[in-house]
């Protein structure tokens, strides 16, 4: 401690030392407790992750063991309430993969082009109006997207494609695409803004047009940020439950664009309220599978973000 190195005049020294020692003794104890408390607070995030992981593994494994890993992951039929229940989640996995891929295919180009618009093309004042609006899009609760999808998109699909019910993979893809737009826009815009101006100026000076500069210089320079945006979008889309629960129809068919489908997330959500026994355990197993998906995506995202920081 710093106090100890201070030198006092000899006459006062004894008394002063004594006083300081008792004072710094209690102070020292307080400092130590506070440090411990803060350490515990810091450690709690790790503890939460551990608790979640352990709980999911402990409650997810029994059903997998009972059903059999291959039957569980590659079984094509999910009939949890049938007399002879079947717990194959391949349709759920494929639906989640197709749904996410579809949302990315629609959402990423639109989001990226919008980011180019906001970052490079739009006059400052226009961008300043649009940006908060995009933020608002990000803040709208997912269940509201589900409601609008249910009331607008579902009837539209029913009538356009002449199907019995409009609740379908297509409706889910559109809702997901809209929901991932804001994060794709804002992350890619940040990446595009971070491209050094010199790159663009050099390109312009060499005779490239502005558009060529944006797509052939700025975008490649911002590619790891844009990749991060895509991965973030994948994470959002694969984890969304409530919005697509309202528009997907929730029947565990093999995925088809116009048929009613069930995602990994909605697979949990639909039955969580009333399930019991093996059925319930199977839901936790689905949770475990979903969790593994998400962890992989997180790791990939971290890699891209780190690249972005270094590059």
């Amino acid at each position, binding site marked *: 401690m710093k106090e100890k190195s201070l030198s006092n005049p000899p006459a006062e020294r004894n008394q002063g030392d004594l006083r300081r020692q008792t004072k710094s003794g209690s102070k020292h104890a307080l400092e130590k407790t506070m440090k411990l408390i803060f350490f515990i607070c810091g450690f709690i995030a790790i503890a939460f992750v551990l608790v979640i992981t352990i709980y999911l593994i402990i409650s997810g494994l029994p059903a997998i063991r009972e059903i059999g890993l291959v039957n569980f992951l590659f079984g094509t039929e999910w009939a949890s309430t049938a007399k002879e229940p079947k717990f194959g989640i391949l349709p759920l996995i494929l639906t989640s993969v197709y749904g996410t891929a579809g949302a990315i295919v629609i959402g990423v180009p639109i989001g990226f082009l919008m980011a180019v618009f906001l970052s490079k093309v739009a006059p400052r004042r226009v961008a300043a109006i649009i940006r*908060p*609006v995009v933020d608002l899009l990000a803040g709208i609760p997912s269940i509201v997207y589900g409601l609008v999808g249910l009331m607008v998109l579902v009837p539209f699909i029913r009538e356009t494609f002449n199907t019995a019910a409009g609740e379908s993979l297509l409706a889910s893809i559109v809702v997901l695409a809209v929901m991932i737009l804001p994060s794709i826009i804002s992350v890619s815009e940040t990446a595009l803004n971070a491209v050094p101006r010199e790159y663009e100026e050099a390109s312009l000076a060499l005779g490239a047009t502005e558009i060529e500069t944006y797509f052939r210089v700025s975008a490649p320079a911002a590619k790891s940020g844009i990749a991060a945006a895509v991965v973030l979008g994948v994470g959002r889309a694969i984890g969304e439950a409530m919005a697509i629960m309202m528009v997907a129809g929730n029947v565990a068919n093999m995925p088809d664009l116009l048929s009613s489908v069930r995602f990994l997330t909605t697979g949990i959500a639909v039955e969580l309220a009333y399930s019991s026994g093996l059925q319930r355990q199977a839901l936790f197993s689905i949770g475990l599978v979903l969790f593994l998906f998400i962890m992989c995506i997180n790791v990939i995202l971290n890699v891209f973000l780190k690249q972005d920081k270094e590059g």
Partner: protein
Amino acid sequence: MANHNHNAQDMARNFSASRRAYNGVMRALIYLASAIVVALLVFLLCYIFYRGIPNLSLEFLTSEESVRNDTQGIGPAILNTLYVIIATLIVVLPLGVGAAIYLTEYATNRKLVSAIEFATETLAGIPSIIYALVGVLVFAESLALGKTLIAGAFTLVIMTLPTVIRTTQESLKTVPLSYREGSLGLGSGKWHMIRTVVLPSSIDGIITGCILSIGRIVGESAVLLYTVGMSMRMQDFFQNGLESFFSASGSTLSVALYVYAKVRADFDLAFSVAVVLIVITLVINLAAKFLGKKFKKK
């Protein structure tokens, strides 16, 4: 950038047809995409307000649902939402701020810091349906809280923790090192320095964290649907003191929306709840932005 000048220049230059086509098509695509997004947003908001506002009245916002009085209302849902927000914040604020303080002020072990940061990022990336599972498993069942508002609040604590940690950390980082050195140099201990110098200078970051967490809580539906119950009746939180406080259950706003839309197919009321949710979101966004600006000025 001065686009218009460049545009004119582009035209004047003698480009090959393919290059001109590329430029034209890409520019058109940029405008098209932007127009789609803006149109989508305008449509979304207009549609929701158009469907929702006609049913919105003071009575709807304040009264409870009752067959006898023939009233429909989301008064209980609003109160429950408030309850969950407050209960969550009371727990998550000390935890999150404490963790941020540990990370920026105390931690010396780089491995531990990166482990905590990785854990925080992981928590931020876990989808809410997984939190719903955890909430049901851990809080409602293992800790025997049942389907109560408090079980929902505890689950939301885990969910909002990363937000609070991150915003607090950002604002702690902006407190100049000289403040800390000045305080330590005058002989104060580390905790005293944090309490009197560091925390007051980063209060706006902490408030931003609060606001963002509130936004997350208000918009959350998956977790709450399975942890707080679906009752739309008014609760008396103080009837039996603490006991009724901890055993209270009932739907929050987003759960009420789900109940109206999916269980009762009463879509007009669902849209009214949606309007309320969007207005709250808007207010939260504006507040966060306002604070952010103040934050930057400093």
